[in-house]
């Protein structure tokens, strides 16, 4: 993000939303405004969660919120380092944590940022805070840059498109590696190479994809 950048206002808003959500979670105090609110006294008593000026849970379109954000939260957790099953569990935990408390769906960006923040906290807490923060920051920076705007939809489309530019053998290797979780030995056997050869194919394919996707996304954002 840079001054003068057209994406400044959206990024800034996202950042402020996430940061304020974090502060409220840490302080465990009800929010008087903002995209989402942590638990208030009503929630503690088991009453329908409702905040002054905010719709109750049942007035929210919960199904829409879940449908709209679940892929983003799940992908975000995967990028943080969760295996798929754990990411699924944590995604569900995230929605439950957020939706069982007073909550205001202010706008899509703010809700997405808040959900990610809660997911991140649950992830760190689940690992007993032993996650290297530097790695998390790096993953988060990568997410913000390449997938933050639309929960990775654009990135996924670009990736699928770039996959078509690979050779058949490289695609097969990637498919074995990422879809079927095959070992390198199995990949090597399937594509008729040595294990080192298979490793090279995978690395080159990923490097090609990385460049292709970065090029595609950058040009799209520039409107070229």
């Amino acid at each position: 993000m840079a001054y003068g950048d057209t994406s400044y206002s959206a990024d800034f808003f996202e950042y402020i939303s996430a940061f304020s959500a974090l502060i409220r979670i840490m302080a465990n105090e009800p929010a008087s405004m903002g995209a989402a609110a942590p638990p208030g006294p009503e929630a503690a008593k088991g009453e329908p969660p409702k905040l002054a000026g905010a719709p109750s849970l049942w007035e929210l379109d919960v199904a829409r919120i879940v449908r709209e954000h679940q892929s983003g939260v799940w992908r975000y957790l995967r990028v943080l380092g969760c295996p798929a099953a754990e990411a699924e569990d944590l995604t569900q935990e995230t929605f439950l944590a957020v939706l069982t408390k007073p909550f205001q769906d202010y706008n899509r960006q703010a809700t997405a940022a808040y959900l990610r923040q809660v997911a991140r906290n649950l992830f760190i807490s689940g690992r007993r805070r032993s996650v290297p923060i530097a790695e998390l920051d790096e993953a988060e920076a990568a997410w913000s840059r390449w997938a933050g705007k639309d929960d990775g939809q654009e990135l996924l489309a670009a990736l699928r498109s770039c996959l078509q530019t690979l050779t058949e053998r490289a695609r097969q290797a990637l498919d074995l590696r990422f879809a079927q979780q095959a070992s390198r030995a199995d990949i090597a056997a399937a594509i008729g190479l040595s294990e080192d050869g298979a490793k090279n194919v995978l690395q080159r394919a990923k490097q090609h994809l990385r460049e292709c996707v970065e090029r595609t996304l950058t040009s799209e954002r520039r409107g070229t």
Partner: protein
Amino acid sequence: MNDRLLDAFLEEACGGAQPPDLTDKVLAALASPGEGARRSTAPVSPIPVLACPAGAGPVLANAARQKAQATRGTFGGWLPVAMAASLLLAVAGYWMLSHSKTKESVIAERAGERPPVKQPAPHIDTPLLPDSAQVVADERSSSDERPSPIAEKVVSSDAGVGRQGNSPAEKLPEGNVPDEEMLTPREQPTTVAENRISPPIGEFDSSTAGDAVAATSLPSALSTSATTDAQVTAYINAVLKSHWSDAGVRPSPAATESEWCRRVYLDCIGRIPTVEELEVFLIDNRRDKRRKLVERLLDDDLYLETYARFWTTLWTNILIGRTGGMEPDSPVYREGLQQFLRRSFLTNKPYNQFVYELVSAKGTNRPVEVASAEAPYNGAVNFLLQHMQERATPATAKTAQVFLGLQVQCTQCHNHPFNHWKQSRFWELNAFFRQAREEQVTTDGQPKVVRLLDGDFAGEGASSGAGDRFAEAEVYFERNGILQVAYPTFVDGTAIDPNGMVSVVDRRLELARLVSRSDELKQAIVNRMWGHFFGYGFTKPVDDLGPHNPPSHPELLARLADEFAGHGYDLKRLIRWITLSDAYALSSKFGPKLGNAADDPTLGNAPLFSHFYVRQMSAEQLYESLLVATGAHRTLADYEEQQRLKDRWLEQFAIAFGTDENDEATTFDGTITQTLVMMNGELTRQATNGESGSFLSQVAMKSERTGKPERAAALNELYLAALARRPSRAEVQVANDLLVAQSGNTTTALEDIWWALLNSNEFILNH
């Protein structure tokens, strides 16, 4: 774009893991908040923990070996040293090859290509109702014995799983009760009358004070569960199998009989089997020989003393550490506590009674004349005497940690960082200990005689109060710079009368009652015992239960805890359930080829118990095993003398940090000290000494009497004594070379072989 981002999206783009549709699940959970809350007990994430590598055994050092050679006389020389070293390397190599992962797997792991294992979903019972389950139900109804719900579920799930395909799990050893036996009508559910293994509360004739109170205040410790041992074991098997299936791992093949025998001796009575014991087990052809061996180790008079000594040592370390009572001015009389513990284990005292007596103990720490009728000798007081300093805060933390599996020590100063426990909770628990008084009895010099009694407690602000100053005896603590007040309230929120007069409320008795009846008590001990036998508990560490640290198998922990309580808090019964389970009988080999490379808790994954986790013997186990392997246990003196020698040997490994929480560490695990002690220590020197009358000399005599067959028998005996297996062909070859190098001097050759075996990884590991 970093790799993690690319990999995650590539997996999705290639058709791997896809974002789930959780809409219905979330809506359903929101519609029933209770369900949502319970979901949180699911194993959300494997907790990455750093575990010590199990195979941290000693390494041969030529210099050290040369020293040993120098003491041996004229037969010393470089050749025997080389031979001994090569033998040791052969043993280590054989063991490593057979137990470690393959080269390919290591390479694959380094390349990060190990397929991620799906974490086991929260497992609910798998009621695969087979025909046999109905048979059991019919049999039970015909005998007017209604099985508990768990019994029915156990039967059905196990029978169903047992009929599945040709998985390695089906090749499990027979020691685990087969379905047929489990279902046979001969096996009747445990009844109250049968289960009176230990003296019922109130009849136990202990010299300890407080027993009379225990008899009137404790819940019944007699069995109330109709579930049989076989059914509980079958339930364990079924749940673990289900988790293996969920996680996509296969169990390792079964361990060999000698491996199983060695580990059950080590885990139940703290030492390896003798050659005779091992051979008796191996030649036994009965189908239920494993069950019989476990029962013999637990109940036979021959082993009762050893069993009690082993568990006494373990619990002494748990309660007061390896250094408690070792200082000359300590108020703790270590032997007194050990006497109490030994008596408890000899009589298989119900665990809740055992805890009750420790928490509520009153009396004098030593058996001396000054012990009066008001404060008779009671070895159990030595537990709390170790932790009574600093307003009894260590006693508070230790009681919660050891008996309830709750690590609340940090909440002494602040709220718990990872869960909802508040600072006030610690001080509310602490208030239970504030009537306790530690009184030093005036005697002439050492040893120190101390009484632990209870006196009226007027609260910390009593001096300024008016009226009945005992009515609300409070405890103060500081929170964010503000003084706050706490009254005795148990961890489950149960508050007692805050009156500080002992005649009105005896707070420690109340605490003992609450602890002994709590759910936390049974879960904590089951988790601890599981951890003892499997190397990993359902949580790590075993004494840190709570919402921040979900167990790996929550349903199994809960059921075992209920069954344990239902069977009268019988520790021996719990041991039988665990040791006769399929998982305990699995080999320690694992890796990609066996389909369970991912089940490696040393990498931070939650344990799946799909193979036996290799671990180093404790110092205590090693000491006892060295005695057994060398036959020295036959010539030792009485119990006190044995214990004294053992404590002296163990002392060298213990370090006390002197912190508020009486922390200490052992320098035993894989350290230079341990290696040097094993290579050059007095015990090893005695063990490898071929002097007349020694174990080695007897083996050598057999060998020298005749020719090669006898030599082979001697070599076999050494391997069986140390490793519970016979030597491989390569090892026999090295031994023969060694014998040739020693110019036919069998005794010296055997000394070298024996030394190498005792210093091998395979000897020092429980595998």
